[in-house]
C-alpha cells in the first residue's frame, strides 16, 4: 500500500442536475514515482477524474459521489482541498483562470499559496526566486501576470503549483494553449521533476508525447477505464480505435512496416524506438 500515490476505489460521480454519470465504477492505482497518462476522447471524464484527485470533487463541485480515492493512503473525503494541496497539485488548461487575481506581480502570484499557509516572508522570497528560475519566468518577475502571454502565464500557473511542493502533480491538458516548442520546454521540466521522484499524472491528446513520457497509460471511455498498461501494450491493442484513440504515428508506421515484413515485428511507440527499428530494417535489407 505504501508505494501507491493514488488509489481509486470503485469511484462514480454524477454532477448535480445531470442524468449521465461522468464517472462510473472506476478503479485503478498509480504507483509512487510513476509517469501516469490518462487518455480518451473528449467528454469521457478525464477532467472529472483529475478534479477528484485534488479533492475538488467532492468538496467543490456539487454532485453525487460514490466510492473513494486515496491520496498517499488517505481518503480525499476526510481532507480539505487546502490540506490535499500540500500533497497533490493540479495544473489545467486555461492559464488566466489559474491566477489568483490578487497579485500585481509574478512574484506575488507565485507566493500566494504560501501566504495562505502562513509561510514566513524570508522563506517565501527564497522559494519564489527558486521557482521563478526553474520555470524561467525570472525576467518577468515584476510584471503583472495578467499582462503576460498565454505561454508565460501558464508557466506562472505551473510555478504557483510547484511552489507548494506537492509530491504528486496532475496535469490536465495543461499545454493545449502553448505552441509545440513551449510545451516541449514545460515537459522537459516535468520529466526532470519526475526523475527526482515526483509522481506525474497527465491528461493529453498528443499521443506521441504520451508515448514519449508515460510508463503507464489508462484509456477511459464513457466514464470507465477500458484499457491499462505500458504504452507499448496499450498502443498495440487493436481495440484502441473503438475507444476514440489513435496510437502515435510511430506505432502505426512500425506496425505497417512489420506487417509487410520490412522490419522486425516489434512496436516502436516513440521516435527513438521507431528510428532504431527502421534503421535496422534498412540495414537488414542491404
Amino acid at each position: 500500500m505504501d508505494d501507491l500515490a493514488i488509489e481509486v476505489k470503485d469511484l462514480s460521480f454524477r454532477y448535480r442536475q445531470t442524468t449521465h454519470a461522468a464517472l462510473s465504477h472506476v478503479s485503478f492505482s498509480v504507483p509512487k514515482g510513476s509517469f501516469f497518462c490518462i487518455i480518451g476522447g473528449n467528454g469521457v471524464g478525464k477532467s472529472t477524474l483529475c478534479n477528484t484527485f485534488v479533492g475538488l470533487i467532492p468538496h467543490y463541485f456539487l454532485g453525487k459521489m460514490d466510492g473513494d480515492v486515496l491520496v498517499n493512503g488517505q481518503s480525499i473525503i476526510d481532507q480539505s482541498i487546502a490540506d490535499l494541496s500540500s500533497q497533490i497539485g493540479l495544473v489545467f488548461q486555461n492559464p488566466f483562470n489559474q491566477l489568483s487575481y490578487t497579485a500585481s506581480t509574478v512574484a506575488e502570484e507565485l507566493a500566494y499559496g504560501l501566504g495562505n499557509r502562513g509561510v514566513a516572508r524570508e522563506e517565501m522570497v527564497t522559494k519564489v526566486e527558486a521557482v521563478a528560475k526553474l520555470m524561467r519566468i525570472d525576467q518577468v518577475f515584476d510584471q503583472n501576470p495578467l499582462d503576460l502571454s498565454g505561454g508565460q502565464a501558464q508557466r506562472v500557473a505551473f510555478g504557483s503549483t510547484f511552489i507548494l511542493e506537492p509530491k504528486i502533480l496532475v496535469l490536465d491538458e495543461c499545454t493545449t494553449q502553448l505552441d509545440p516548442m513551449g510545451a516541449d520546454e514545460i515537459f522537459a521540466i516535468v520529466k526532470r521533476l519526475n526523475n527526482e521522484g515526483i509522481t506525474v499524472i497527465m491528461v493529453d491528446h498528443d499521443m506521441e508525447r504520451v508515448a514519449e513520457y508515460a510508463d503507464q497509460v489508462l484509456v477511459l471511455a464513457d466514464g470507465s477505464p477500458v484499457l491499462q498498461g505500458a504504452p507499448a501494450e496499450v498502443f498495440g491493442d487493436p481495440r484502441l480505435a473503438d475507444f476514440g484513440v489513435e496510437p502515435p504515428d510511430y506505432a502505426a508506421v512500425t506496425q505497417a512496416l512489420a506487417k509487410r515484413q520490412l522490419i522486425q515485428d516489434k512496436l516502436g511507440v516513440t521516435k527513438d524506438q521507431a528510428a532504431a527499428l527502421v534503421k535496422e530494417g534498412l540495414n537488414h535489407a542491404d
Partner: protein
Amino acid sequence: MGSGEPVKSPIEKLNPLTKMLAIFCLGLATLIYPNSWLGLGIVIVLFGVAGMAHILKSFAKTIFGFGIPISLMLFFIQGLYSPKNKTIIADLGFAKLGEEGLLYAAKIVITLLVFLATFYIMNQTTYAGKMVAALTSSGINPQVGYLILASLNVVPQMHRRLDVIKEAQEARGVETTGGLWARLKAYIPLMGPVVMSSLTDAQERGMTLETRGFANTNVKRTSYIEVTTSKADTYLRAGLIIFLVAVIIISILMRW
C-alpha cells in the same frame, strides 16, 4: 539612476494604515471645525505633501478640476437659493445672494477638498496590494482582501476581453457604429459573451483559489509584500490623533 530600486518618496514608504488614519483625522477635523479656515490650511499643507510625494502636478489638476466647478455650482445653488439665507449681500435681480448660503457652500467645498486631497494622495502613493497586506496583517478577513484586489485586477482583464469580443462579433456581422438604435442593438451581443464567459471562468478561478489553500481557516496569512511600521509612522499617528482631539476641544470652546 537606472539600476536598483526606484527612489521612493517618504510618503510612499509610510504604512498604508497611517495614511488611512490621516484621511479620517484630517477629514473629520475639517468637518467639526466651525468655519472653513482650518480646512483651507490643511489643503495648503497637503499641496506640500503632494510635492514631497512627487505628484504635485496631477494633484493640483485633480483639486482644481474638482474644486472650481463644484464651487461655482454650490455658490450658485446655495448662495442664491439656500433657505438659510438671511443676510443679503447682493441683489442680482432674478435672485438674491445670501451670506449664510455662501458660507455653507464654502464649508462643504473645503470639507470635500480635504477628503478628496487626502484620499488622492493615499491612492497615488499606495500600492493596492500593500494596503490589503497591511489590512490583512491588522486582522481583517482575507476574503475581504481578496474581494478588493480581485475587483481591481479583474476589470482591466475584462476590458481586454471586451475588445476581443467586439472583434469577434463584428466578424459575425454585428455593426458597432451607425445610428443610435444600431449601437444599442449591439449591446447584448457584446455584453452577453462577457457575462457568460466570466461566469463560467469564475468556477475555474474558484478551483484555483481552493487548490492554493484559500479556504485555510486555522492559519494567520502572510504576504510577499513587506509592510513595516516605522518610527515616522508611530509619530505621525500620534500627531494625527492629538490634532483631532485638539480640534474637537477647540471647536466645542468656539461654539460655546
